[in-house]
């Protein structure tokens, strides 16, 4: 650990302010608590909100995991993991089961999370109504008055134009029958997993908002009786591990239209292959092959 930084980079007063916001967020599930977001040593859009929330909840004994679209080995995930190794001295892991705090960009791990785990989301636009109503003064009133008709109109227009609700990520949810919330740009495949045993914290750095879902909070994806919500994924099995239930990325293989589908959750795929599962284009797993 680098002793030139305070534990987990942020100064104590900043952490106290963020911690108070997290507590109010947990007390009012789905409500976006304003907080005085700090400049971080990375640009907005790279997870500054998630990083500030993680820095405020980490303890020295924790093991941390960071994923970007499900992958542990992409630039954003690697940088943030290194940031906390350096400034907080915490252990890191790519295994979902070993992590106490998981910071994520746009995915929920395939493996069910436990009660003692914390999932921290990086959020670009926390306001689910923002693209329907650009004025903060108005969206704030709409939440206060529980005036969410506009969101249903948007979903209805999806159906009238496309024959189905075409929103496929950042699919709006209603929390405990009160606040409409943006679950961050996770695929709608992940929406049913928002009701989980772990604590979920959402941090939006540029937009200066923190919100939260306590464990087992009731989260309902908005829909209509005749067009019920559907958690969709590519109609395919993972080509590496053969899983038919995981969320898939489509990877272009060559200039001739060759492609393969692979699990977006790299740890899930890796552990399945290690257990002997082989997909259509996969090869038997060898230690250190990855």
């Amino acid at each position, binding site marked *: 650990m680098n002793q030139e930084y*305070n*534990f*987990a980079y942020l100064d*104590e*007063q900043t*952490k*106290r*302010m963020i*911690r*108070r*916001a*997290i*507590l*109010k*967020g*947990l*007390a*009012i*599930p789905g*409500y976006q*608590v*304003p907080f005085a977001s700090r400049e971080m040593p990375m640009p907005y859009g790279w997870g500054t909100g998630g990083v500030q929330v993680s820095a*405020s*909840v*980490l*303890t*020295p*004994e924790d093991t941390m995991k960071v994923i970007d679209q499900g992958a542990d080995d992409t630039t954003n995930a690697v940088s943030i993991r290194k940031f906390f190794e350096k400034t907080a001295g915490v252990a890191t892991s790519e295994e979902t089961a070993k992590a106490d705090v998981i910071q994520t960009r746009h995915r929920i791990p395939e493996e069910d999370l436990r009660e003692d785990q914390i999932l921290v989301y990086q959020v670009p636009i926390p306001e689910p109504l923002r693209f329907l109503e650009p004025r903060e003064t108005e969206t*704030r*009133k709409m*939440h*206060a*008055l529980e005036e969410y008709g506009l969101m249903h109109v948007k979903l209805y227009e999806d159906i009238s134009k496309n024959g189905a609700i075409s929103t496929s990520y950042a699919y709006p949810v209603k929390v*405990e029958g*009160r*606040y409409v919330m943006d679950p961050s740009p996770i695929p709608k495949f992940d929406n049913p997993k928002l009701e989980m*045993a772990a*604590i979920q914290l959402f941090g939006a750095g540029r937009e200066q908002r923190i919100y*939260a*879902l*306590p*464990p*087992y*909070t*009731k989260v309902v994806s908005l829909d209509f009786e005749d067009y019920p919500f559907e958690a969709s994924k590519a109609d395919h099995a993972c080509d590496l591990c053969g899983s038919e239930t995981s969320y898939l990325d489509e990877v272009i293989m060559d200039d001739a239209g060759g492609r393969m589908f692979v699990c977006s959750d790299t740890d899930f795929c890796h552990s399945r292959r290690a257990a002997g599962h082989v997909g259509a284009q996969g090869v038997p797993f060898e230690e250190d092959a990855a």
Partner: protein
Amino acid sequence: MHATALTGGFAEAPQDAARAFRAVMNVMARPGLIEVLTGAEPPAPMSRAAGTLALTLLDGNTPVHLAGALDCPDLRDWITFHTGAPFAGREHAAFAFGEWDDLLPLNGYPIGNPEYPDRGTTLVVEMPALETTGATLRGPGIKDTAALNLPDPAALQANAMQFPLGLDFFFTCGDRIAALPRSTKVEAA
């Protein structure tokens, strides 16, 4: 100022506050759960759990209300030295500390407004005992039901009725802490 005001803080502020906050967050996220909260040694009559919570969450931006026996010079000096939090009446308090009867009436505290419900006061109630029996709790953070020996279930029911406005509670006893956010539905035993 007595010398006692200068002692009893965190030994390693960043690490101790991080561990303390984990316990505080866990109980707020899981109403009815009781956790151990230590690290600070406040002067009497404040409990260790309430003192540790104070050092974890208070600073110059959080007006504090001390009620009843807790409103004593020793404790005021201790909070001022360690946190710098200004003292205030209940109508301006971000945090209030005291025994249940001293904190009443509940309608004197800010409960937030419809556009900013987060501006409600957090009350830290010193309890003679803390047990997972008594009133039945349901709501966010609770899988089926939980139970906690609440001081006055009817008053806390009324608080939950105001959701999303309302007060949030911590209950402390010695070095143990539990919480009851406004989102929890309370049913008297």
